[in-house]
């Protein structure tokens, strides 16, 4: 079993290095579009938070859009996803309407969790997604269990989940990696290495780059430039092929940077300014936009369409009602049949062609 450990070279970062031969021009536009939607929705939510309309705090994935966009784009409708809080693009690709996302942030009844959980603590069961919990990386085990079921039933499907560098320190990381390795399961673990777990930098988190641990658990580990959406797509596409082909799990370490604080209340003064500046030059949205512009795509038009969609979604979300307080204690238990997760939307031309 080979373990590829290839940190992104300086010459690749910031350039338009990787172009997947599996992406059509429309695919590449969709990748940009999903990142723009994520960034735009989060920026809108942040301003609504500052206006006091988003309760609690607000967590975003500014600067990390390529990680969820590229990886989720490689997933088939029948695959299942456990999406994390800096991975909004996965929900966008999977088919969650922007108005529902904003309603979710606003704690409205029309939000995906009907006001029962906040931020990106959601997954639309009908779209094959499981909502995360705050304890990280708990969802690694849930994804492992889904993959286990797929393998037991002989299905050609996979599960994917995301988590951060801080998550690699907890026992559930080990338990999931070990279980997935022992049972050789069709699961993809995306380690979103964004340099900080809240304020804790990498050198206080681990002594060895976690991607190297994959070999110890008996499966492939790959490092990828997490700010290149097409590279993210390609490495995930390969991991999925390995998974459904019986080749076992893959740990993908997506190297990126959390460009905002841990949450809206965090000014991240612990991050050196030079580090932020260095990563600003590698912005994933700008990079994909430049790549498409060079191909002759009217990027301004894509941006304008996304902006208009977000404006409409904002109006719809703000007009939607708050949940009825009378319902707060209802539905703690399921009293009907247990519905299984449904299939999601898959935008990649590879899936469109297949159907």
């Amino acid at each position, binding site marked *: 079993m080979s373990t590829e450990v290839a940190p992104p070279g300086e010459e690749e970062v910031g350039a338009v290095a990787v172009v997947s031969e599996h992406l059509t021009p429309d695919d590449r536009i969709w990748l940009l579009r999903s990142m723009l939607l994520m960034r735009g929705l989060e920026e809108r939510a942040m301003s609504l938070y500052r206006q006091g309309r988003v309760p609690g705090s607000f967590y975003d994935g500014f600067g990390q859009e390529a990680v969820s966009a590229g990886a989720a784009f490689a997933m088939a409708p029948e695959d*299942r996803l456990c999406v994390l809080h800096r991975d909004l693009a996965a929900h966008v690709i999977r088919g969650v309407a922007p108005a529902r996302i904003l309603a979710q942030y606003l704690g409205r009844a029309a939000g*995906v*969790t*009907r006001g*029962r*959980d906040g931020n990106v*603590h*959601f*997954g639309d*069961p009908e779209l094959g997604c*499981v*909502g995360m*919990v*705050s*304890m990280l990386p*708990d*969802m*690694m*085990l*849930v*994804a*492992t*269990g*889904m*993959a*286990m*079921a*797929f393998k*037991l039933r002989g299905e050609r499907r996979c*599960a994917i989940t995301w988590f951060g560098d801080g998550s690699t320190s907890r*026992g*559930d990381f080990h*338990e*999931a990696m*070990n*279980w997935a390795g*022992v049972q050789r399961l069709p699961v993809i673990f995306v380690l979103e290495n964004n340099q900080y777990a809240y304020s804790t930098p990498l050198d206080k988190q681990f002594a060895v780059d976690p991607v190297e641990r994959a070999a110890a658990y008996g499966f492939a580990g790959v490092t990828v430039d997490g700010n290149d959406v097409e590279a993210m797509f390609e490495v995930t596409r390969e991991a999925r092929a390995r998974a459904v082909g019986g080749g076992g799990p893959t740990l993908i370490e997506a190297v990126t940077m959390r460009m905002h604080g841990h949450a809206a209340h965090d000014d991240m003064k612990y991050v050196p300014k030079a580090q932020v500046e260095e990563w600003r030059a590698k912005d994933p949205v700008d990079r994909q936009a430049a790549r498409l512009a060079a191909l002759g795509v009217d990027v301004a038009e894509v941006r304008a369409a996304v902006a208009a969609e977000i404006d409409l979604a904002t109006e719809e979300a703000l007009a939607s009602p708050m949940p009825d307080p009378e319902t707060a204690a209802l*539905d*703690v*238990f*399921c*009293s*009907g*049949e*247990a*519905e*299984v*997760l449904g299939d999601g939307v898959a935008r990649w031309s590879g899936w469109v062609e297949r159907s």
Partner: protein
Amino acid sequence: MPTMTYLQAISSALRDEMRADQRVLLMGEDIGEFGGAFKVTDGFFDEFGPERVMDTPLAESAIIGCAVGAAVVGLRPVCEMQFADFISCGFDQLVNVAGKMYYRQGLAVPLVVRMPSGGGFSGGPFHSQNPEAWFMHAPGLKVVAPSTAVDAKGLLCHAIHDPNPVCFMEHKHLYRRVRGEVPDGVFETPFCARVAQPGSDLVVVCYGAMVEVALEAVADGLDGASVEVLDLRSLVPLDEEAVLDSVARCSKVVIVDEANATCAAGAQVAALIAEKGFELLDGPVVRVATPDVPIPFSPPLEAAVLPNVERVREACRELLAY
């Protein structure tokens, strides 16, 4: 109707459910070829194979977390904790992931966690606990605790059919000591209390291994008093109506927990009676429970803390004389 032990009844429920429903699979440590630490799954490996009687890595969090994943894509996992005590290593997945999923996400998590619990055999601080109250306090989890063979099977079948996570507290001390007639095939016992012995002067409210203790304590009639024994069977949901009915009938209540006293299931029953049954009482609510200490190893120390027949009898006598 066949007679079987409490342990055989649990095995029978699992076997019948697995025969009836391909989605049911067992996950746990040493449950496969070895048949489990207590031999509940003895012979299952040969009948159902290694995939449905899955030997897992020694990782309780993973067992429950993976069971959640399997459940939401259509399987019906039944997890075995080798000892209930070890659930502390899987607490987060059970309480935060499984328990809250339906409320938060509208996604049902049909799974059962079997927890061999209870003391009385020098298991020491890590093999003797009754952790049911941990889960009563965690919204979204059901908690049941059978005291008889027939209920062990009926409640377990019902738990496997339930679309929610169910903590199935099976008392180790009952495994081979309790036996009774148990029907063949799948049958369900709803999650509600039962009157184990009817009476009208005093009711002993209890569950699990304490039902047997209570029945023995009152067997000689307690100086002619008519004593009822109410077996809760289910702690979540708690059968409030059955408790209040018994209180209305008997007016005097002794509540017995093998668990540590503070915030135990019996404390919840006492609170329920104080809130909704105060007018029905003809004396103080009396509790017999294990004091708030770890369960000690050495026999005289363990015997000193666990409720027993004598303590229950004494509590009943005192209350009857009130």
